[in-house]
């Protein structure tokens, strides 16, 4: 068992904090604990959890000036009066949602309230029972699971999905590899999808959804199986997409992080 400051610093490094900064934060945290006349573990709780909390806090957007918001762009997705029924069962009714370029929308609600169904309607894979859906042409969908072939490698997926979007193989592979590094993932050449962990598989899904630079990204709980550090990276990635002018819809059952999104559609509350 390592001591608290060492474990804290190690976790900061693992989360991608620069070494000098991690050292400084570890020193300061030790002094803060001393200020409170307590052991770090008593003041801050477990070292690795506090490291994650601190990193998340520090990456939160600044008030006012801090967030460079571009004016909302063109409408990328528009739902109006959308309902879904299966036989007599109404899953949801009268959903309105407009998402513009440069905006993030979150679809939240308990399990079984139709979040994934609504996302599939946004993608045009499922037909609504009523209402209208308008969307931009270039859409990327990241399903909760599936959509990948177990016996193929990550690179083969990049080639395959790239081809479907009209990209030449070399460019699809290099784009895929580049997008993967942004999620702190370096695909191994020989590794097939069936040998990947759940978290890695989700990263593959995320890269595939973004491979053809869609204007509208639809993400269905794409961070299931991510560890906390990657989870933080995931949201940073979402905000990077947003700042690049894309529209993003995220299905989630997690309620933190919602203060930074532009629209919250709560299917459970309706």
């Amino acid at each position, binding site marked *: 068992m390592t001591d608290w400051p060492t474990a804290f610093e190690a976790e900061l490094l693992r989360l991608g904090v620069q070494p000098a900064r991690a050292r400084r934060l570890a020193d300061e945290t030790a002094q*803060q604990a001393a200020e409170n006349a307590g052991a770090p573990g008593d003041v801050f709780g477990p070292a690795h959890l506090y490291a994650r909390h601190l990193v998340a806090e520090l990456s939160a957007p600044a*008030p006012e000036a801090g967030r460079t918001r571009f004016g909302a762009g063109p409408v990328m997705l528009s739902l109006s009066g959308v309902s879904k029924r299966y036989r007599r069962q109404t899953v949801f009714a009268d959903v309105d949602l407009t998402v513009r370029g440069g905006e993030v929308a979150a679809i939240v609600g308990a399990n079984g309230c139709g979040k994934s169904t609504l996302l599939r309607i946004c993608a045009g894979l499922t037909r609504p029972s009523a209402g209208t859906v308008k969307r931009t042409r270039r859409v990327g969908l990241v399903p909760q699971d599936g959509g990948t072939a177990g016996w193929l490698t990550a690179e083969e997926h990049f080639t395959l999905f790239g081809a479907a979007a009209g990209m030449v193989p070399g460019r699809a592979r290099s784009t895929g590899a580049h997008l993967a590094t942004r999620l702190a993932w370096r695909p191994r050449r020989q590794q097939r999808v069936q040998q990947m962990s759940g978290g890695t598989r989700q990263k593959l899904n995320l890269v595939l959804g973004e491979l053809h630079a869609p204007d509208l990204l639809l993400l269905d709980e794409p961070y299931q199986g991510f560890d906390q550090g990657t989870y933080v990276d995931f949201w940073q990635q979402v905000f990077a997409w947003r700042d690049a002018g894309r529209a993003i819809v995220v299905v989630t059952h997690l309620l933190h992080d919602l203060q930074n999104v532009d629209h919250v559609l709560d299917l459970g509350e309706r």
Partner: protein
Amino acid sequence: MTPRPWLHGFLDLCLLAMLRERADYGYGLSQRLAAAGVADVPGGTLYPALLRLEEQGLATPAWAPSEAGPRRKYYAITEAGLDVLGGQADDWRRFRDGVDSLLSPSEVPHD
């Protein structure tokens, strides 16, 4: 004391307001918050908030020795901090007045 979720939105505001009065260090600020009856803020909430204010340029730190124990990091409010404080104070008053108006019994016209 204040339920934690409430404080979350207003901790920065409280910290900036205290720093406007005088520069202070972490433990001193937590005692002032407690003495004001606002909240008992755990270190794990307070120190990240202070660090965030520092990195956003709203407060600037200076190290000073203490009579006993380790040196202390004193924070002073910056010009940008004062601006943000002004804006957030307005937000807070609007919010407080709104809640008050919901809490107080509605005025029944006398006739």
